[in-house]
Each structure stands twice: as C-alpha cells, then as structure tokens.
C-alpha cells in the first residue's frame, strides 16, 4: 500500500489516561500507541467505554479536568501532550481537527452556518471576511451540502442531522488539516445518511491526503474506508493490523467473536447468533490477567495469571499486533455460518 512509506502525521506513543474520581482512580486508556501516516485512515473500534474517545481527546488536549495523561503524542515534530491551551490552539482546528458524534450540540445555535465556518478561517488564517465567506461556500460545496449558497445564512436548527454533520466536517476542513479525527461521526445518523457521509470522508481522504482516525463501534463502517484497524477492549488496543487482516482473519478472540456476533445484512441465516456471553468490562473492576478472559472461549490459567501484552509486527507475520496468549490462526475461526 502506498501509505506504508508516507511520513507519519500523528504519532501516539504509550498514551495513558487516568481519571481521578471520588471512588478512586479509573484507568480509561492504557499504553495506547498508534502512528497514522499521511493519506491513511485508521479505524479505532471498540464498545462503549473501551477508551476510544478519551485516547483522542487526550491528543486534542480536551480531556476533563480530573484526567491525568502520560505518554506522548506528536503532530509531525510538535509534541502535543502537556502543552498549554495557547500553544495547542496553534494546532487545534488548524493542523489537527476533530468532529464529534452529536451534530446537534456541536454547533453554536445562535450563529449562522456561514459565520461559524468563516470564524475559524478568519481566526486561524487571517483571511478577510469576504474571502472567508467565499471559502466557506466552497467548503460547503465540497462536503456536498445541497443548495450551499442559501445554507450559508441558515442557523443550525434549520438543518437536518446529516446536513449539520456535513457542516461540522466543513469546519474541520476549513484550515486544511493534516490530521482529522472523527469520533463516531455517523452513529447518530440514519444508515442512508451514514453511507453518504462515509463516502464523503473517503473522497476527502483520497483527495486531500489527510491522515484520519475514524472512531466507531461498527466494524462495517471501518470496512468501507479504513486502511488499518485498531481494536480496543477495556482501555487497551488488543489487535492492530490492516483492515483485511483484522476483518478477514482476526487473531484476537474478541475481534473474532465480535465479528461473528454481528448479524450481517448479506447473511440469510436465521438461527441463533454466536453471541459473546457476559457483560462489557467494568473499568473499575477489571479481572486479573486478560481483561477479555471472563468472556473468552479460549481462556486458560495463563490468561488469568498474566495480562498479554501487545506483541508487535516483529514476532507476528504481516503488519499486525495482537495482545493474546493464544492468538487465533485466522482460518479455524473464520465466521461459521449457521
């Protein structure tokens, strides 16, 4: 793949996030390492509470006040962790942009769409008001907002959810970012609108050569536009590889089980789904050893005794890493149709 030798745009290294809460500290993210190259989209997949959002909020410097961060994240040569707000604002919204799940609350209700896009352009690029407005219009057209000239003067509540998400994307793109972080950008939308937005993101990635992190809980979303996938469970990356490797031949039992338990639109089966038993892990009471152990069909004493660490590409064939004492061989556990 061509991205394999492109320069690294965002390099996250051993990032950990701990929250201090009245009931003790909560480790939300542990040793999160990920390098995203230019022109590459990495899907970050996991269930609710797996630590997907907090990892990238840490990168953006947007964590809650009770959070403690360790580790490093670099945008090109600039380090991002531990910088103060003024310094971060030189990158945020300029070279590093983020879009969020809820397009309803991420826009300011009392400003028109045009003003909100232009604001960022004027602020960061120092353009004149007219130039900013012209650029806002171009951006809206680029994110395929229908009837763009009229939309410039509309308020967010006059737009549908899908339109608002497009406007969010336009704002994120305003200063030609090198890295775009999309945190569940389509979760609140209908499948039809989701498909439109994903197609748009795929186009933008291709045309602009941005590095992109796409956070989602839906493996199907990842399959469409990601080049690589990181699967998270209980605050850790448990599997990392190209989208083909991970989805076609998962090595981590969690990835495999998740794939198998998802009903598929192209599967005519009607029998029971191979569900994952148990409950998602409680970050305050993680089991000893492997966090997936209590729900894992392959768990043994070794798994309960010691937490498997993420073994990198050197020890496993291909470009992938996996954190499991008994990684699957990738064929035996392919999805069995019922």
């Amino acid at each position: 793949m061509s991205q394999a030798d492109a320069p690294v745009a965002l390099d996250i290294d051993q990032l950990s996030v701990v929250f201090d809460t009245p009931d003790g500290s909560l480790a939300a993210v542990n040793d999160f390492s990920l390098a995203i190259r230019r022109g590459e989209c990495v899907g970050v997949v996991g269930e609710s509470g797996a630590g997907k959002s907090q990892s990238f909020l840490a990168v953006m410097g947007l964590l809650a006040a009770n959070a403690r961060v360790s580790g490093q994240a670099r945008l090109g040569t600039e380090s991002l962790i531990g910088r103060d707000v003024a310094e971060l604002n030189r990158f945020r919204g300029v070279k590093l942009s983020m879009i969020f799940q809820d397009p309803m609350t991420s826009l300011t209700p009392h400003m028109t769409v045009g003003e909100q896009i232009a604001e960022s352009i004027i602020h960061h690029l120092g353009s004149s008001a007219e130039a900013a407005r012209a650029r806002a219009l171009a951006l809206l057209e680029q994110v395929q907002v229908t009837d763009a000239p009229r939309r410039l003067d509309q308020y967010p509540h006059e737009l549908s959810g899908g339109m608002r998400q497009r406007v969010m994307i336009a704002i994120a793109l305003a200063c030609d970012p090198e890295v775009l972080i999309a945190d569940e950008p389509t979760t609140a939308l209908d499948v039809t609108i989701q498909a439109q937005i994903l197609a748009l993101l795929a186009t933008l990635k291709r045309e602009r050569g941005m590095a992109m992190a796409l956070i989602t809980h839906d493996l199907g979303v990842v399959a469409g536009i990601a080049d690589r996938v990181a699967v998270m469970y209980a605050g850790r990356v448990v599997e990392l590889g190209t989208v083909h490797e991970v989805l076609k031949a998962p090595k981590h039992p969690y990835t495999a089980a998740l794939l198998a338990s998802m009903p598929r639109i192209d599967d005519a089966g009607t029998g029971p789904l191979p569900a994952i038993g148990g409950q998602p892990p409680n970050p305050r009471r993680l089991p000893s050893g492997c966090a997936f152990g209590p729900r894992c069909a392959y768990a043994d004493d070794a798994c309960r005794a010691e937490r498997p660490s993420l073994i990198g590409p050197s020890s496993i064939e291909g470009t992938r890493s996996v954190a499991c004492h008994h990684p699957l061989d990738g064929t035996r556990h392919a999805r069995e149709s019922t």
Partner: protein
Amino acid sequence: MTEPLLQLRDLRVWFPVGEGLFRAKRNLRAVDGIDLQVAPGEALGIVGESGCGKSTLARAILRLVRSSGGQILWLGRPIEGWSTARVRPLRRDMQIVFQDPLASLDPRMTVGEIVAEPLRVHARDLSRAERRERVVDMLARVGLPADVVNRYPHEFSGGQCQRIGIARAMVLRPKLLVCDEPVSALDVSIQAQIVNLLQDLKRDFGMTILFVSHNLAVVRRLCDRVLVLYLGKPMELASTDLLYSQPRHPYTQGLLAAVPVPDPDLQPQRLGGALGGELPSPLAPPSGCVFRTRCAHAVAACAAAAPQLQPVEGGHEVACDRWRDIGPYGATP
C-alpha cells in the same frame, strides 16, 4: 390462513402542529394509510429511516397514541375508538419493549416490583408468593438470577436492563410483543444476546412480535416479514427472504445498499451506491409518490398519483408503479 391477530385498515395517525401564533395548524402525517395483517406467531419487522413513523405506528397499535383514521382490529374486533378503560383488559395481551433500557424502568422501584407490575394489574388473584414465583421464573427465563429482584435498575448494565424490560413485558405471556428498537442502545457484543433471547421467547411462547428497528441486519435475522415505511406510508411488504434477496422498491434497495458489511472486499464499493438526498419534511411531503425526490427511477408520472401497494408474487407487495421496469436488486445476489 388462521385468523389474523391484528389487522390494520388504512390506519392513519396525524399530529396537529401549530406553526407560530398566527399560522393555521397543519397536520403532520406520521402514519398515513397502513393496511396490514399480522398472523399469530409471526415476527413482523418495521423498518425505515428516522422519522418515518415506525414508533408512531407501534404506539397506535398499542393505543398509546390515538389514531386519526382507519381501523385497528384485534382478533377481528375494531378497537380504535375504545375508551382507555375499555382497552385496559386488552393490555394483558399486548406489551412493549422500549429502546432505552434504563429509561423504561422506574428508578424508584426494585426489579421485582417492576416485573410484577403487570401481574398486579391483570392477575389480581395471585397471592404474593405466587406473584413472586412468576416473577422469578420469568427473570430466570431471560437469564437473570433470582436475587436481582431486590435491586434497582441503575445497578445493571444496559443489556441486563433490557432483559428486565423484556421480563416485564413477557410476564403475562402476551400474544403480541411490540419491540421499539430494543437493541439500538446496546453494545454490539450485547445485541446478539438480546436478539437470541427474543428468538427463543418467540419460539417457546409462540408469540407474535412487531419489531421496529432501523437495523436491517437484525431484522433479517429475527423477522418473518418486513414492512418498509417512508414518510408514514408503506413502500414495500414482503417475506424477509424476498425483501432482502429481491427488493423491488427503489427505497428498499437504497436502504439495503446503505447498510455496511464488515467485509473490506465488499464495503468500499457499497459506499458508492448510497441513496442520495434526505427525508423531506413530513409537513410538506412530495406530491404523488412520496419517494420521488430521492428516486433514481422517477419519471413525470410519479409526481401525479401516489402509487398503491400492488402484489408482485407470493404476498410480496410494492408501492411503485414502475417496479416491473426497475427489477429486483438485492443485498444477497
């Protein structure tokens, strides 16, 4: 065919909405002319985009909202005009499971009290011990241990709360279970558990299920027949097999094409075929075929008259006048 459990004849639910102080009230046609027969033991899926009237239809059937026109026949008897008091005894046979597992449980009641509530209303002659026994049995049936009866809903995860909600709905062994997006708020790894549970319950109790969902993959797994709604109107009605393998209506085809599959060989191409446009305002639906503003096959005639559901084959019905020209195009070839 056995007598249908439930029949809808031209069912309509219109909400009057006032637009400002001086403008006239308009009607929002949330459900607009649904004809449907549901056989006992059947699982019928109701799908469509957000705002197309799925929940409203489900609630109208349960008489939680008033219908504005048409008929609802329950076991052959029209019930749509009945007073609340007269409907009450029927409620023992029709129950509902909601989308938000936690919000649908009273935070001030223990799980035991919550599950016992329908018994309290409809099985008054049960002794406390008998009632408790039925509650514990039902909880076991949905996979929860007996000692949960003394706990409060907030102590449970989303999936467990949904099990409690299902236990409450099932404790009277209703004939009809309406599920309004029962897995949408759940973690991916938990969805399959709940889908399997519903499948088991349906099989074991011979229950009829109305399954409202925007997750078309789950519907395919669980339902026997599917009704596709758009702006409150039926677009297509077919057995699950036919609907997914040979969808006839352009809207159904677009919906199915939009569902992502976790396969990197297929999914990137699928993205290209996404349905364009957005749901028009339900206050100003397009004339003629309501779908025509987004339909790639639309012709001038589509704007003139609204197509009615017309039979294709084997109970397959589609509301498109051009279905013969369009041809089937499925999720599985």
